[in-house]
């Protein structure tokens, strides 16, 4: 399988204590992401109990604050090499919106549209032989959790109902309570994307 488009790249950080939502304001967040381009700086702020979402639709960026997690989404459909998600993520981590020293883990997430490389692709290549024996399978997907070199992975591939296309979701979870350097984070984001590509190519 090969990646057709990148829908979303995400960094999620977990904290050992609940986030202080009083410190999270649309003004404070806009100051971090301001470009001085009126169009690009248009933003939306959504609040619910235990949830705050700051969206910059024209920059295709979204930051979600939950009780103990912060999710930074970048939907610019750019490759990790050219994405500015690490810079955005560190802007917030270095601000007073969150308590950086209370992080307990972080992870990279990728949502990509994939399609088979060859026309000979059969659903049996994706799912187990016994399941593939079910008569008249219209579509199927897989969910795999595995661990390599201390990193926990979750890979889900599910059909999206458009031809032979699938949505692949990949999470690489790092159980560490200190943040690596900016360069290490950038390298890690690219390395895990390459890891995803390698896995998909083998299917």
């Amino acid at each position, binding site marked *: 399988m090969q990646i057709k488009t990148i829908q979303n790249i995400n960094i999620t950080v977990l904290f050992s204590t609940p986030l202080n939502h009083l410190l999270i304001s649309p003004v404070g967040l806009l100051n971090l992401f301001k470009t001085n381009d009126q169009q690009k700086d248009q933003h939306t702020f959504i609040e619910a109990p235990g949830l705050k979402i700051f969206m910059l639709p024209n920059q295709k960026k979204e930051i979600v604050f939950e009780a*103990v997690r912060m999710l930074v989404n970048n939907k610019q459909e750019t490759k990790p090499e050219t994405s500015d998600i690490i810079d955005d993520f560190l802007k917030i981590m270095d601000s007073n919106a969150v308590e950086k020293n209370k992080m307990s*883990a972080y992870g990279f997430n990728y949502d990509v549209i994939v399609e088979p490389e060859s026309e000979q692709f059969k659903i049996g290549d994706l799912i187990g032989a016994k399941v593939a024996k079910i008569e008249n399978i219209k579509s199927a997907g897989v969910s795999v959790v595995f661990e390599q070199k201390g990193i926990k992975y979750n890979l889900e591939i599910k059909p999206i109902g458009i031809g032979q296309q699938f949505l692949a979701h990949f999470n690489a979870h790092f159980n560490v309570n200190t943040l690596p350097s900016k360069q290490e984070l950038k390298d890690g984001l690219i390395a895990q994307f390459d890891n995803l590509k390698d896995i998909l190519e083998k299917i």
Partner: protein
Amino acid sequence: MTTLSIEQLNIYLWPAKLNYSSDSSIDATDKIVEEIIATKFLFLKKQIGDELFNQLSYSDKLFMAETAGSIDFGHAVDLYQIAREIKEYDNL
């Protein structure tokens, strides 16, 4: 069948995975929906009392919490009047 207390239910309803996973496919909206259910359960417990609440299965509680107050007769219903009419009917 084991009946859970409301405190236990709150714990069981909480998607614990959210608190230790960096997986972005799990999000807080699920948690909010579950908090709403927990709140409805608390309301239901207050309405029907501890004794009856503790005898109900989880699915019964969920059904009652989801459907309570949702029967629309299209007009106000005087329950006392209905009770009186039933009583009079029984006395006939």
